C-alpha cells in the first residue's frame, strides 16, 4: 500500500518508480486483499464454465463431422433411402431432406405470421387486459409442453381423421414454434422505445400505421432472428413427427397428403438399426441437419444486418 505523500504535479506518475529521490509516486495497482481475490475467483469460475460448456459442443460437432462427412456426397443428398441392410455408399437421404424442408417451411408459414401478429396484439394492443394476459400465460404454458405430447395431440386431433401427412407434422412443429415466436417477438417489440411511437402519433398516424411503419420495422431484425431460431429448433424435432408423418423411403413432394419423412425421424430410425450402412446414413443425416441449422443461423445474421442498417 502506498503511503500518501505530496507529489510534484509536474512529474508523470509511474507506479513503483520514485520520480525523484526521496519522493514516492502513488501505487495505482489494485491492492491485494479480499476484493482482488474475489475478482480472481470470479474470473476463474467464468473460464471454467466456458470450458465446461464448450467441450460437449466441440465433441458433438467433431463426432458428427468425423462420422458423417464420409457419408455425404451429391448422391447421398438426392438418392432415395435404401433398405437398412444396404451398405453405406449406395442410396442416401434425399426424401428426408426434402421432407424436412417441406414440413418445416409449412410449419414456419403457419407459426411465424401468427406468432408475430400475436406478439403485436399482446404488446401493442392488449396491454394489461385480461385477453392479453391469457395469451401471454398460454404461450408460456405451451412452451413447456413436451414435443412428444404435441405430436400425440395432433395425432388424436388430425391424423386419426385425415391420416398421416407432412401437413400433420407441420401442425405439430407449428404448435411447438408458435409460443417461441410469440415470446421472442414480444421481447423485441418491448425494446422499441416509446418515443418512436409518440413521434409517429404526433404527425397524425393511426395505431395500425404506427405499428406497421415504425414499430415493426424497428423490431424486424430481432423478430426475424427469433423466428429463424425457432425454425431451426423445429427442424430438429423428432418425436412429434413419429406420430404424424411416419417415415417413407421415396420423396413425397405432396406435403398435404400421404406419409412423408424427415431427417430427424430418419436419424432416429436408422441409428437404432444393427446394420453399419444404416448407422452411417444416420450420421450423414445428422450432419446434414446440423448444416441446415447452421445455414439458417447465418441467414438470420444476414437478414438482421440488412434490416437494421438504419438503426445506428
Amino acid at each position: 500500500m502506498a503511503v500518501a505523500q505530496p507529489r510534484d504535479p509536474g512529474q508523470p506518475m509511474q507506479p513503483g518508480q520514485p520520480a525523484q529521490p526521496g519522493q514516492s509516486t502513488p501505487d495505482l495497482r489494485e491492492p491485494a486483499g479480499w476484493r482482488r481475490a474475489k475478482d480472481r475467483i470470479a474470473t476463474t469460475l467464468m473460464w471454467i464454465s466456458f470450458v465446461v460448456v464448450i467441450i460437449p459442443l466441440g465433441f458433438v460437432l467433431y463426432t458428427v463431422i468425423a462420422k458423417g462427412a464420409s457419408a455425404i456426397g451429391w448422391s447421398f443428398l438426392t438418392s432415395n433411402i435404401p433398405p437398412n441392410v444396404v451398405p453405406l455408399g449406395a442410396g442416401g437421404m434425399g426424401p428426408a431432406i426434402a421432407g424436412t424442408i417441406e414440413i418445416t417451411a409449412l410449419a414456419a408459414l403457419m407459426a411465424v405470421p401468427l406468432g408475430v401478429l400475436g406478439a403485436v396484439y399482446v404488446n401493442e394492443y392488449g396491454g394489461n387486459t385480461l385477453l392479453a394476459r391469457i395469451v401471454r400465460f398460454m404461450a408460456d404454458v405451451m412452451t413447456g409442453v413436451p414435443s412428444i405430447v404435441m405430436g400425440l395431440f395432433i395425432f388424436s386431433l388430425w391424423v386419426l381423421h385425415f391420416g398421416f401427412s407432412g401437413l400433420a407434422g407441420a401442425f405439430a412443429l407449428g404448435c411447438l414454434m408458435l409460443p417461441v415466436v410469440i415470446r421472442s417477438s414480444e421481447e423485441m417489440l418491448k425494446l422499441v422505445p416509446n418515443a418512436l411511437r409518440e413521434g409517429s402519433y404526433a404527425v397524425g398516424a393511426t395505431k395500425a400505421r404506427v405499428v406497421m411503419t415504425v414499430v415493426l420495422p424497428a423490431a424486424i431484425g430481432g423478430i426475424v432472428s427469433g423466428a429463424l431460431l425457432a425454425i431451426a429448433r423445429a427442424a430438429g424435432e423428432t418425436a412429434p413427427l413419429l406420430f404424424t408423418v411416419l417415415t417413407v423411403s421415396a420423396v413425397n413432394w405432396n406435403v398435404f397428403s400421404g406419409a412423408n419423412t424427415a431427417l430427424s425421424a430418419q436419424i432416429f430410425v436408422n441409428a437404432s438399426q444393427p446394420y453399419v450402412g444404416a448407422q452411417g446414413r444416420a450420421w450423414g443425416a445428422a450432419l446434414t441437419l446440423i448444416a441446415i441449422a447452421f445455414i439458417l443461423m447465418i441467414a438470420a445474421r444476414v437478414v438482421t444486418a440488412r434490416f437494421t442498417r438504419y438503426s445506428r
Partner: protein
Amino acid sequence: MEQSEQDTVTSYQVPHPETRPQDQSPSSRTPVFDVKNVSIYYGSFRAVTNVSLTIYENEITAFIGPSGCGKTTVLRTLNRMNDLVVGARVEGEVYYRGASLYHKDVSPTAVRRRIGMVFQKPNPFPKSIYDNVAYGPRINGIRNKARLNEIVERSLRQAALWDEVKNRLGTSGLSLSGGQAQRLCIARTLAVEPDVVLMDEPASALDPIATAAIEDLMKEIRSQYTIVIVTHNMQQATRVSDRTAFYSVLIDSENDTRTGTLVEYDQTASLFENPRDERTKAYVTGRMG
C-alpha cells in the same frame, strides 16, 4: 407496406400558410386554443388542476415552472397525446379554433395531423433522413415523388438543417448529432404543415449553439405557425416567447399529493417585469417557488 398506405388516404387538407392571417396587432389576434378550467388526472391522481388560458395564433407561448408542475401534462392535452397514457383523463373544456378537442366524435389522429409535437429527447425514426421527413406526408397520403422531394427540402430548410444533410439524405437519421437530430424531428413535424407546433423542452438536451439555432428557427417560423413551448430555461422563455404561462405546484401535506396549477399567464415582458403573483415573482427572480 407501400401499398397499404394507399387505403387510408384521407381528404385531409393541409392549411396553407398563405391563407392564415398575419401581422395582426396582439389585441386582435385569433385565439387558437381556449383552455377552460381544465384538470388532468392519471387514474385517481390529480396531476393538474384549474388551468384556464387562451393561446393566440402566430405567437410563441411559453410554459414555465418548477419540475412536477404539470407544464408538459397540459401541453400533451393540447394534441391529445395524453390519450396514449393508460388512465389519463381530462376534465374541463379545451377548444381548438372553436371545436371541443375532447368531444366524443373527435379523432385524436385528426387532431394530431393539425397539431404537431416535438419532444424533449430527439426521437428520429431508425430510417433514412429523407424517410424521416417524408414520413408524415406519406402517412397522410402523398405519394408523388416530386412532391415529396419538394416537401423534404422545404421542411429541412425551415428547420435549418438542409445544408448540413443535403448530400446524405439516404443515411440513417440516427447518425445525426443531438442538435441535428432535434432539428430533423422539427422538420418531420413541419413536413405535414401543421397549424400548431407543440414543443416539449426541445432544447433541454442540446448545447448552447444548437439551442440558439432552434430558437432562431422558432422565431423564423412563427409567422406561419402557432407555437407552444415548455421550457425549464427562463432566459429562453424571455428570448423567444410572446406570452408566458407560469405553473406551480400545490402541495397538500395532509394527503401527500402534489398537484400542478396555472399561477399566472400574461405577455412575457409583463410577467417577468411585473409579476402579479408572489410565487411568480419568487420564481422569475430566482428564488424558487
